[in-house]
């Protein structure tokens, strides 16, 4: 599975949706994922890819990790995987 497919699977599970209902331009809000759901998704993504996502739930906008939609999340993860080398 590609990064994108894995991320969509994780987010779909969190949102209790079928992966086909999660698109690249879906926002977490569109998918009904609240702040606790977001932290849980980030945990699942970190576990899946063995990376550390710089995300602080107190100031999501200030974090160096774009969560504005699914595409941005996938791009951010690919970047972290590449940096890990």
């Amino acid at each position, binding site marked *: 599975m590609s990064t994108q497919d894995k991320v969509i699977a994780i987010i779909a599970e969190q949102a209790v949706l079928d992966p086909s209902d999660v698109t690249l331009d879906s926002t977490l809000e569109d998918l009904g994922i609240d702040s606790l759901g977001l932290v*849980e998704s980030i945990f699942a993504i970190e576990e899946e890819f063995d990376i550390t996502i710089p995300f602080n739930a107190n100031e999501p906008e200030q974090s160096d990790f774009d969560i504005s939609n699914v595409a941005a999340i996938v791009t951010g993860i690919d970047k972290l995987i590449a940096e890990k080398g």
Partner: protein
Amino acid sequence: MKRVVITGAGTINALGHSVAETLTSMREGRCGIGELEFRDVDRLAIKIGGQVRDFEAEGRFNRQQMVLYDRFTQFTLVAAGQAIRQSGLEFTGDLAARSGVVLGTAGGGVSTWDDNYRSVYEDGKNRVHPFVVPKLMNNAAASHVSMEYNLKGPSFTVSTACASSNHAMAQAFQMVRSGMSPAMITGGSESMLCFGGVKAWEGLRVMSKDACRPFSANRNGMVQGEGAGIFVFEEYEHARARGAEILCEIAGYAMSSDAADIVMPSKQGAARAISGALRDARINADEVGYINAHGTGTAANDKTECAAVADVFGPHADNLMISSTKSMHGHLIGGTGAVELLACIMALRDGVVAPTIGYEEPDPECALDVVPNEAREAKVDVALSNAFAFGGLNAVLALKRV
């Protein structure tokens, strides 16, 4: 002051997954203690306990709930569901705004601590699930009951080791008696039967390797149990006005502190709690027909407790019955008083006194009628429930037949 009655009861413990199953087991003198089953049990010296069997949390709770509910919370929600359903109460409007949840637990989410310590220390992981804190906190169970049933009044958790449930129920009683709340959900829950939980108790060297035999001369220690007991305490007129079934009345309580030793019990502290409960309930000592003992099966507790009862009741100590149901369900630590309250309800409502099973040899230091091995039919008008905790914190409840 208002009168306070119990209009709902629920439980899950080693003797059953409901009040009916539990009382049947108590009546039959069945033992729920057996071989422990969990990871690394082979590294324990103590391998027995009153474990809840055949409990599948999956299926009862959805995925989102499962990540938030430690086993002690799962037990609480199962028991609370039974109790609230039996009471027939629905919490809306003013009733919801003034009713709350006071629960006891000694350890809270012990297996959540255990699993996650194992993960970071033993498995060397550097990341834990984001809900570890809300899952393990001692008030998690009380909070989830308040959320599930829309209870918006005062809610909190009481933690006084082995007396947690009795302190919690005494507090809930006080809140209803004073008129502060028309109904309170109360009781307690514990789930320490995991490697770390049992290992810690092993360290004290007060645990039995074979059985819990309270008051028997050959007793050799306590056996841990797990589970929950939850009740609906309701103001008497409120219950009567809606035609609710009343299980029994809570007539009074007392709490005392030994102010002496962190683990050794004191006869004076226990006696002050027992006599205080009688005074608070305006009950004469000779009206008491049954005492559900703290009766842990340790050398120290049982003889101290019997001496305290003899002191408070004088000659009447020989007329009353006193049994320890821990011989059957084990010691549920912070949840124990709640499950044991069921034995008091059975005595008052059904006229059946639960036995102390495993009783083999009389002990001259415990020379009371401990209802050995077989349940007994008797008309009981007043019952007491004793709880004496490590740290010397005692709480005794007095209950009456309605």
